[in-house]
């Protein structure tokens, strides 16, 4: 019987499958770094993994704590600075980047800065970091959204997707032709962008999810692909890799915290003896 997997494993593995052998990939912390590690270990051994702090072509050792975590690499081939990391992206040397999303609109424009008024925010979120420039100049962007929301209008426009849709992005002359987001991965399914209108379009559903469950989260009449399918099942090999490389990612944040806190108290109690 095929091995069982968690939702987090499905998301990591689905993202990892977007990476092709030889791709130069900018990875953010969490899901993307684990996805990158899996791709490099299993199907894309010549992928060049990069972090924006200037750590290039690194060999993952353990899941990084953040995007400057050299302690989590078993060596890397090129130590450059952040400035050069972005200028090389500008010049077209980065094939793919992965970004997390707090709010997304119909055309894949992204907010990661604030909820509510920018100057007096209801919630102040991290901000751009590298996101705006990577999404502008990487050839392709994979977006992931876990706690975020679909909105008609972003509270703050942090990173450019397809602007007003159609050929708006290419027409602006500000971005590499044909660049932009290629996928949005959520806890319910996989979205792609319509080739002509550049509108988000539901392409795959995760197990146990219906189209109505997805539509409930979307404030506009969501397009659904004619060939809507179920998100492909991870292979046993993929599941085994993710569970072993990044067990804290595989089980999801909630369970990780619960078990982690229990473990801290258990160890403290042992020392007390």
């Amino acid at each position: 019987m095929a091995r069982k997997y968690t939702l987090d494993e499905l998301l990591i593995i689905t993202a990892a499958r977007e990476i092709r052998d030889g791709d130069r990939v900018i990875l953010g912390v969490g899901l993307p770094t684990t996805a990158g590690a899996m791709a490099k270990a299993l199907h894309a051994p010549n992928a060049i993994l990069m972090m924006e702090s200037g750590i290039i072509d690194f060999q993952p050792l353990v899941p990084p704590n953040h995007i400057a975590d050299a302690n989590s690499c078993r060596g890397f081939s090129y130590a450059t600075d952040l400035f050069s990391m972005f200028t090389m992206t500008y010049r077209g040397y980065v094939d793919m980047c992965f970004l997390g999303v707090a709010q997304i609109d119909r055309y894949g424009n992204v907010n990661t800065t604030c909820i509510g008024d920018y100057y007096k925010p209801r919630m102040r979120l991290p901000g751009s970091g590298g996101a705006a420039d990577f999404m502008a100049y990487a050839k392709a962007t994979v977006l992931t959204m876990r706690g975020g929301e679909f909105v008609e209008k972003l509270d703050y426009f942090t990173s450019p997707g397809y602007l007003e849709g159609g050929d708006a992005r290419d027409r602006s002359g500000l971005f590499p032709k044909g660049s932009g987001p290629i996928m949005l991965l959520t806890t319910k399914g996989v979205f792609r962008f319509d080739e002509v209108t550049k509108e988000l379009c539901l392409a795959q559903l995760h197990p146990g999810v219906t189209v109505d469950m997805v539509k409930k989260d979307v404030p506009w009449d969501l397009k659904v692909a004619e060939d809507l399918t179920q998100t492909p099942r991870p292979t046993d090999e993929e599941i085994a890799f993710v569970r072993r490389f990044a067990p804290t990612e595989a089980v999801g944040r909630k369970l990780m915290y619960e078990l982690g806190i229990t473990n801290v108290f258990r160890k403290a109690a042992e020392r007390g003896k």
Partner: protein
Amino acid sequence: MAEAGSKVMTAREAIGRFVHDGDHLVIGNYTVGTCSELVFEVARQGKKGLTLYSQSGVFDVEILVGAGCVDRLVTTYVYRAGGKEGGSAVERALKAGTLLMEDYTNYQYNARMVAGMHGFSFMQVLEGAMVTDLFRKRSFMGEDKYRVIQCPYTGKQLLTVPAANPDVCIVHVQRADKLGNAQYWGALGSVAAASLASRRIIVSCEEIVDHDVIQSSPHLTIIPAYRVDAVVEVPWGAHPTEVLGYYNLDRIAYAFFFLSDTTEDGLKAWMDEWVYGCRDRQAYMDHYMEKHGSHMLDMIRAKAYYSAPANYGSAFCSSWDDEGRERTMGVTPEELEKILEERGLLYG
């Protein structure tokens, strides 16, 4: 007695002498290896009215904003602890109207430092950001947050940011000599640019090494001695953040900080215990060991993974060969002296 040229001093003296109320202060480190002890000392000394620059304003910014040191913040990324129910010192200060904040992208922020480092007045940044709210929504920088100019060569519209030359940089590195030559390796980020853009530089390091060590590995030096004002030796000086080659992130201590940081009272209690309650880093580490035991530090201590040595050797160690003859002209010093005399080329 202080050694000639030595800039070694305590964190208290360095911050007291070189960080002033109202300064533009930049955190040299980017995400990793935060200059925690120097940050704590700024808070302990209660510096006021700072304009704070931090490339990735996480631990450092939360402490300094929480301590009430900061009026204005320039950054690209801030931390928010505890998801939707959580919060941060930055968020609380923005809501209270006690903090003004200017958002840039990582590249734009770094470009301001690079321009400052090289003495330019502005730097070109990536024009795609013109369509975003980063460009449209401005805080205290106003019109000068960005300016658009026309490229004199291509005619293209270019987005630019102004140079930043902060008054003082605080930065933590792996090692330095007493003169201030500072060596840093790992995630290079924007550490060199943030440091070199600044007018004054305070370096803290895990260890002070002999000048010979620096001379045999100059590729690791990111700040030359003549730019440095103070060198502070602080083992565990970045804890609970990490220093490559010395220790990893202390995930448990870090998590406790961010759990506390979700509320104003929580952060105050944490600061009372770890910042104001410890007069220096030694006291902080003593308190840590007393509370958690030394095994927590043993778990995160780095194992060695040495860089292959770069051979800085050369073929010749002087102009004279083994027989004492000059390598090009083939004469001994005595023969040379004689020839110069014969040709009438010597004076005096």
